[in-house]
């Protein structure tokens, strides 16, 4: 079963291409351009990994991370950000991020991290394929 990935970034020019490249490598990819949309999607569906841009309009990255983990404690979140001071990396990991990666990401490295992430428990409804869109 392919890894189910949600990529969240307000930079559409980045989002669309990285989504396409991951799709081409056999992953099941969804996208969101805001943390708010991503939170709704995470509530509706179970993703193996969420790749979350840390600096987006309206919702602070740390808040988005906390809220996401609260909705789906078993979701694995990889934070993507421009610059990663040690303090930010520590704080993100303390909030439950699987990893923190600097932009521009190395795709091979990112794919490795996605593949290593543990699969969450899917609900019975999701296993039967009855998903709400």
């Amino acid at each position, binding site marked *: 079963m392919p890894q189910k990935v949600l990529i969240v970034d307000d930079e559409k*020019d980045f989002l669309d*291409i990285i989504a396409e490249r991951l799709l081409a490598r056999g992953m099941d990819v969804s996208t969101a351009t805001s943390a708010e949309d991503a939170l709704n999607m995470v509530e509706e569906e179970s993703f193996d990994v969420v790749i979350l841009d840390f600096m987006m309009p309206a919702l602070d990255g740390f808040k988005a991370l906390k809220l996401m983990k609260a909705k789906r404690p078993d979701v694995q979140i990889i934070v993507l950000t421009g610059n990663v001071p040690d303090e930010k990396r520590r704080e993100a990991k303390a909030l439950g991020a699987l990893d923190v990666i*600097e932009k521009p990401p190395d795709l091979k490295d990112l794919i490795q991290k996605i593949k290593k992430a543990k699969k969450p428990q899917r609900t019975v409804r999701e296993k039967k394929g009855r998903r709400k869109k």
Partner: protein
Amino acid sequence: MRAKLEIVAESGLQFFGKMTASISHEIKNVLAIINENAGLLEDLVLMADGGAEIEPQRLKNMSRTVMKQVSRADIIMKNMNRLAHSVDESIKTIDLNDLLELLVALSNRFASTRGVGIQLKRNEGPLKLRTSPFFLVNLLWLCLDFAMDAAGEDKIVELVTRNTETGIEVFFKRLGGLAEAPLKPFPAEPEKGLCDLLRTELEVSTGNQEIVVRIAGDIDRD
């Protein structure tokens, strides 16, 4: 209490650090987009080697995206350069219109992350001041930073200027959130220190939902 000069100097360094960190973050976003386009090109070439066809329109779109990002990065670096050169002379004659445009350009990303819009009404004529450009843009940034948190329901901060006999007034308007608590104390020591240095007055008007900064026309004139 720390000497005012120390407070002002610290404020200046913090402002410079905040702006350059923001600029570097934006540049990283640009590099990420260019990098993904380069990676996708590589993927397409590999597919072409395997017999797949590449649509020319696809390549055109990718090329346009890269050019758009290069243009974006160029603007970001021009603004960074303008900020860097604002410290070349401690006092000089400037056009406040240009300084406010620079301030808005540097602040847009901060505004965006807070869900606030900034509208600058550029004065039709020049707004000449003899002042310290760096410390003035520092003070105006502190005012704008506070104003963004105090923006009204429409989440817009409007910047308007007016010439006076003794200098220029800058208004930060539509601050419907001023009456709401809790906002941080304003003006605080950094703002007060900068106002002293720049011979400037700062007024917060909850009734008018605005902040007014009254800037002396000539910092050296008694």
